[in-house]
């Protein structure tokens, strides 16, 4: 189990190698890379100057310092590369990777195989055992891994899309902007080229996906799409649920109001 002390050790074992590989980076950038505040980083750097190896002569200490608000390391005392991933780190990363559905992306599948190869030999069994205890895989319908790649690389995509409202499937050409979940449902937000407008697409209604080789220019305004709910309609909408469903409805729609007969709406 992680404790504050354990966390500090993990951070310090990563800090020296990181600065060693990226010498002269601003203090704030190093703090961001380490996931700590500026003052926590400065405290960590101070502590590292007391670390070394016996017989603790001046050259036996880690020599890491800040100059002109930039961080340098002169003597890393062989802490030049971080330790390997632990089994727990590997499991967390593998589980997170599966959020996007490893089966749908060759890149994710091969990345996970390579990840397992860099685990310490003694951690592999534990990695496999714990891997069966954490499962975030099913939320990702097929195509998510490839779509996330297309979004981050700003590549145009084409896919068959089943439009529930019209009950038909059409080929869509989309410049993807963001991929997100809403109430457990995955959506792609992007610019529909044929319609000349931004649209939302449910990922589970997409057919075979094709990713273009062309890089799109970055969008001027960052997108943070949302799924329109009842609050977006001009007229108020009232939906009544029977009393037996009231508790479940309140869990999903906390704004639901109780009615006299125990139902909600």
């Amino acid at each position: 189990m992680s404790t504050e002390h354990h966390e500090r050790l993990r951070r310090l074992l990563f800090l020296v190698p990181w600065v060693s590989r990226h010498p002269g980076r601003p203090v704030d950038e190093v703090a961001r890379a380490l996931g700590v505040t500026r003052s926590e980083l400065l405290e960590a750097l101070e502590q590292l100057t007391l670390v070394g190896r016996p017989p603790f002569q001046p050259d036996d200490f880690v020599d890491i310092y800040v100059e002109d608000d930039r961080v340098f390391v002169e003597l890393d005392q062989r802490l030049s590369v971080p330790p390997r991933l632990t089994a727990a780190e590997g499991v967390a990363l593998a589980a997170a990777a599966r959020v996007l559905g490893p089966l749908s992306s060759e890149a994710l599948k091969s990345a996970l195989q390579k990840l397992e190869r860099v685990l310490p030999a003694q951690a592999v069994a534990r990695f496999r055992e714990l891997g069966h205890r954490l499962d975030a895989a099913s939320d990702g319908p097929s195509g998510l891994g490839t779509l996330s790649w297309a979004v981050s690389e700003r590549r145009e995509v084409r896919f068959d899309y089943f439009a529930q409202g019209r009950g038909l499937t059409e080929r869509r050409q989309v410049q993807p902007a963001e991929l997100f979940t809403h109430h457990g449902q995955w959506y792609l937000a992007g610019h529909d080229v044929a319609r000349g407008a931004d649209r939302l697409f449910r990922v589970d209604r997409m057919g075979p996906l094709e990713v273009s080789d062309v890089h799109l220019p970055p969008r001027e305004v960052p997108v943070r799409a949302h799924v329109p709910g009842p609050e977006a309609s001009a007229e108020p909408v009232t939906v009544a649920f029977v009393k037996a469903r009231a508790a479940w409805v309140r869990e999903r729609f906390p704004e639901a109001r109780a009615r006299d007969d125990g139902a909600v709406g």
Partner: protein
Amino acid sequence: MDRTERLLDLVALLLAEKRPVSWQRLRTLFKADYGEGSVEACERKFERDKAELLELGIPLTFVPRTDDDEGGYRVDPDAYYLPEPGLSAEELAVLYAAGATALSSGAFPGSQDLAHALRKVAFFADGPLAPPKVRLEPGVAVDTSALPARLDALWAAISARKSVTLEYFSPRSGEVTHRKVDPYGLALRRGVWALAGHCHLRGGLRTFFVHRMRWLEVNPARPKSPDFEVPADFRLDDVIPVWPWHARFHAPIDVDVSLSADLPPVARALFGADPVATPAGPHVTVRATDLDALVSTVLSLSPGAKVVNPPEAVARARAVARTVLDAHGGQGA
């Protein structure tokens, strides 16, 4: 000497030494920590330090004495240093995007482990990796502020096989019950985290939604000693099914669903099964242990999808459709 400094000093020393360092030499080199006071107390202190280094993943090993060497402790640099994983640009980008997405959702079990893993994976990257344009939102709208800490606590309990006690709210009864649970695994389904484990109150395997836990405590007694064994035949998928119609409410039933001509390309995403072309049009066959959940999905796709076999499934689909129609004051057949 401060414990953090001592542990880092040990790592630096053992990484630099080509030969094992004996306990006697360690006692001399770290005189103030291991060399003074009773031998037993010094040994206990070193054992605690060793355990923490091993927990950090430091490959600290003991080499027995030989004719040529007095033996001792060592850290093999090859086993210690993170090797370049050799990820392609695409592999790194997708892996990092997935990990960063999970982390930025604010509610992912083992979040600290995940943060460290991401840093290590990105260590060899040529430049800073772009934040992902992927978002995970929670699948429930209730206050989820306690969710991250509960997920981390549950994951720690699962990893160490420690029992938890929790207060659990049931929407069905509207009551909160106090439970002791042996946590076996966590799964994310439709944006909602669920725990599977042995419930001592009910005397069997149960599922708990994490957002319905009102209070949670991991057994603080003997943190290094497991409280239970996970049954060898336990599979998370069996208890927390991927598809809603796989919840185990009745014996399995194979249901044929006919599809309109537009649906086959998305049939796998919708039903987890491949469509089959028949003279009557495309079909999928779906095995269900919760027929109502399947019927609900099929009706949501109506008229593009329709339950066509077996007769009891058709009858149930009609009954549910009629209930929906009646609720809306309809007069249809």
